[in-house]
């Protein structure tokens, strides 16, 4: 009888090992400056930097492959659609468009919230507010999650894209165009803030301290196939992310965290300034709360209105908060992060 039980256990163990993938393929919808394989701003990027995910799976002999896509969110979507990735970090709009196109994924954690948008102008520009640029040529990298954020910012200022001569330019082309005097302003993210330290441009508007609904959200997602085949591995991955998010939410780690992120190529002053006046725990929270879900719902509606997608896409069932909830519970972190309501106001 004992031999039989041992045999069953052995077979089960072998079957479990056979089910495990030899590799988990994780993709980032970003890349460090000068093509460095480093990202910043999210707990998964720091976990990558510190080798925490690799360590968590090393005991099982599972290798982690990390890919940083220059093509950002759309490149991640292409890789997922062609079976090249199991896990990805990306922003809201590309994921929404991917879902509208039939990509089967699950968002398992928030992973970098309330990202800021910046509008920069040449140093010599006389403009003092967004409204001073009405009718002017403004560059923006359309199709990224920046576009949705800008749409909300303009709406909050009773403006639309049509009030400007909006030109689709990626960041590097946009900067070249602005420094050549061909455009009068450029929307962007952290990379523009970084350039204000270098010179040539100044910030005219940014979302620091503004209503959080104007900001940009990013997440960690897994393919539906991977989630259904390996829920235990997804949980282990989310455990690492939540533990790292807790560390990053500790204000005593602020300087150390920013210093780590400088490996992405940005100087520390960029992060210090971008995060000024913001609690770390609000930006590094992994919680899938009503605020996050509603942001994606609003973004899906905006994407449809702006014809970035052609058919309505449902957000229902896309988020799976169970992994984060379990990790938070087991790590005793229930009181660390604030749950925000749909309007961005704390609910507890």
């Amino acid at each position, binding site marked *: 009888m004992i031999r039989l039980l041992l045999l069953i256990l052995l077979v089960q163990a072998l079957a479990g090992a056979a089910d495990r993938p030899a590799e988990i393929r994780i993709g980032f919808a970003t890349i460090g400056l000068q093509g460095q394989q480093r990202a910043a701003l999210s707990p998964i990027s720091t976990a990558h930097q510190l080798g925490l995910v690799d360590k968590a799976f090393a005991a099982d002999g599972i290798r982690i492959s990390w890919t940083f896509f220059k093509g950002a969110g759309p*490149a991640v979507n292409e890789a997922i659609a062609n079976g090249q990735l199991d896990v990805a970090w990306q922003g809201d709009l590309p994921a929404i468009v991917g879902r509208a196109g039939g*990509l089967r994924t699950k968002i398992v954690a928030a992973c970098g919230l309330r990202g800021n948008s910046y509008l920069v102008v040449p140093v010599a520009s006389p403009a003092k507010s967004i409204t001073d640029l009405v009718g002017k040529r403004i560059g923006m990298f359309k*199709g990224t999650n920046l576009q949705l954020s800008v749409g909300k910012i303009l709406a909050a200022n009773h403006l639309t894209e049509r009030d400007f001569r909006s030109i*689709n330019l990626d960041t590097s082309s946009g900067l070249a165009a602005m420094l050549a005097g*061909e455009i009068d302003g450029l929307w962007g993210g952290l990379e523009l803030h970084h350039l204000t330290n270098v010179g040539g441009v100044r910030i005219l508007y940014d979302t620091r301290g503004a209503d959080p609904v104007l900001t940009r959200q990013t997440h960690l997602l897994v393919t539906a196939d991977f989630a259904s085949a390996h829920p235990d591995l997804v949980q282990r991955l989310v455990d690492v992310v939540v533990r790292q998010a807790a560390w990053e939410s500790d204000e005593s780690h602020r300087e150390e965290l920013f210093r780590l992120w400088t490996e992405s190529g940005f100087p520390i002053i960029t992060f210090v300034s971008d995060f000024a006046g913001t609690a770390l725990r609000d930006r590094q929270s992994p919680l899938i709360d009503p605020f996050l879900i509603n942001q994606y719902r609003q973004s899906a509606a905006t994407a449809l209105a702006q014809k970035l997608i052609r058919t309505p896409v449902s957000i229902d069932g896309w988020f799976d908060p169970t992994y984060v909830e379990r990790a938070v519970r087991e790590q005793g972190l229930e009181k660390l992060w604030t749950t925000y309501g749909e309007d961005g106001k704390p609910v507890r």
Partner: protein
Amino acid sequence: MSRSTSILSLALLAIAAAPAADDIATLEQRIQVLEKSQKDLLDRIRSLLDSQVVQEDVQGVTNSLESFKYQYQRDRETKSPVSVRGITITGGLAARYAATNRSKTSAGADGKGGNANGTASANPAIVNGRNNTFDVAGAFVNFSGSLYRDYAEGRNLTFNLRFDGTPQTGAAIGNSFANLTNANVVYSPLPTTSQDIDRLTITLGQQTLPFGLEANTTEELRPVINSAQFVGATGVGRREIGLVFRGDFGITYDYGYNYRSSLISYNFGLVNGNGPNRADDNDYKDIIARVDVKLPTEYNSWLRELRLGVSYYHGRQVIAGATNAAGALLPGASTYYEGARKRYGLDLYYNHFPFGFTYEFVRSVDDVAAGSSTTERRGNSHTATLFYSFGSQFLASQRNVGAFDDYWPKTWQPFVRFDRWDPDIKISGNHTDIYTVGLNAFFAETTKAQLNLTHKREKLPSGAARPNTAGFITNEIIAQLQYGF
């Protein structure tokens, strides 16, 4: 108050004010904390003092910058190519080995002249009994760049200049020429800064013809080493000089994948029709037109990259009058005629990673000299290719990832191809079929190794100079390394 009383009072006061044992412990703890804080502060001050930038450091950085500026300027003047406008220089070369079961002889008339891979036609010096050879299939260098860049809307003016070096015919050793193949300027009258709007370019100069798939194809769609037979036989693969409009409309742009798809893509142009590097030989300007229709799908649709195209070329050509064996004009024949030169094309294209399929039909209609006048000759071609990719070479996302080393997604691509060319459909049993099976290995960014096995059956009718209704069979293996920079 006496002195002794005062002393006593002070002693009592001191006793009363003296702290209890607990308080002493607390004070000691505070002192320890203060001492630690003091130590930390001193350490920090020392650290800050150590890291302070001093005048000597600034002077060192300044000196380094000056040295760098000098070295940069010197290298730029003495070691860097410099141009007035930014230029991108690219090039490529293909080296290969081919072996066939039919020996090549210079006589050729005995039917032994097998040259399925084209190596013999590329280098037909006198040969005897050759059945294998090393060969340089070709080399090119290409210059392209911007003549005017419109930063705001992308109405750019660009240029392209390309030279192709090919081995020359004849018995002389070592001959080769660098021929001018592309020489054109391209203007975009419509904005190009957005992906989701219509496009139009105008190309003036020497350029490829927008006819069908094969003549303009990339390696992704033509995995075979040699072009289909019709490309050379009908002349649609040669460069022409003229003015060609290329554009599209009905754009679907999938922002989730940066995938751009046009419902209609159109090409229209006027060219000399007399080939590259020479002026026209008649007053008629040949017309080239092509339209292809692609289903307006998003990236994830299984119909993505399904396209149907039609091409049309209408030209006039100068035809020398028919001559006898001695080279004299036949009685009643004119020295020259002007006849029609038409090409019709139909192509189907489906490239849905990792699977791909292309089919192309081409009909040629040419007036040819016959007796004392001309007659019409019609040729047909069918080309079909099927390929499959193992690896992610052809995914744009995978070609642009962050990597410290010389990373490139390695890909294996097996394929099969059928290629038939019938130069005159009025004559039955007068066509050549080439079956090819092969494998491409993409192992670096601009380098690939190719292996092709071909089976060629050349049927010649009973009236031909070397008739063979069953067909001459030539089997050949070609191994090629193609690399670019």
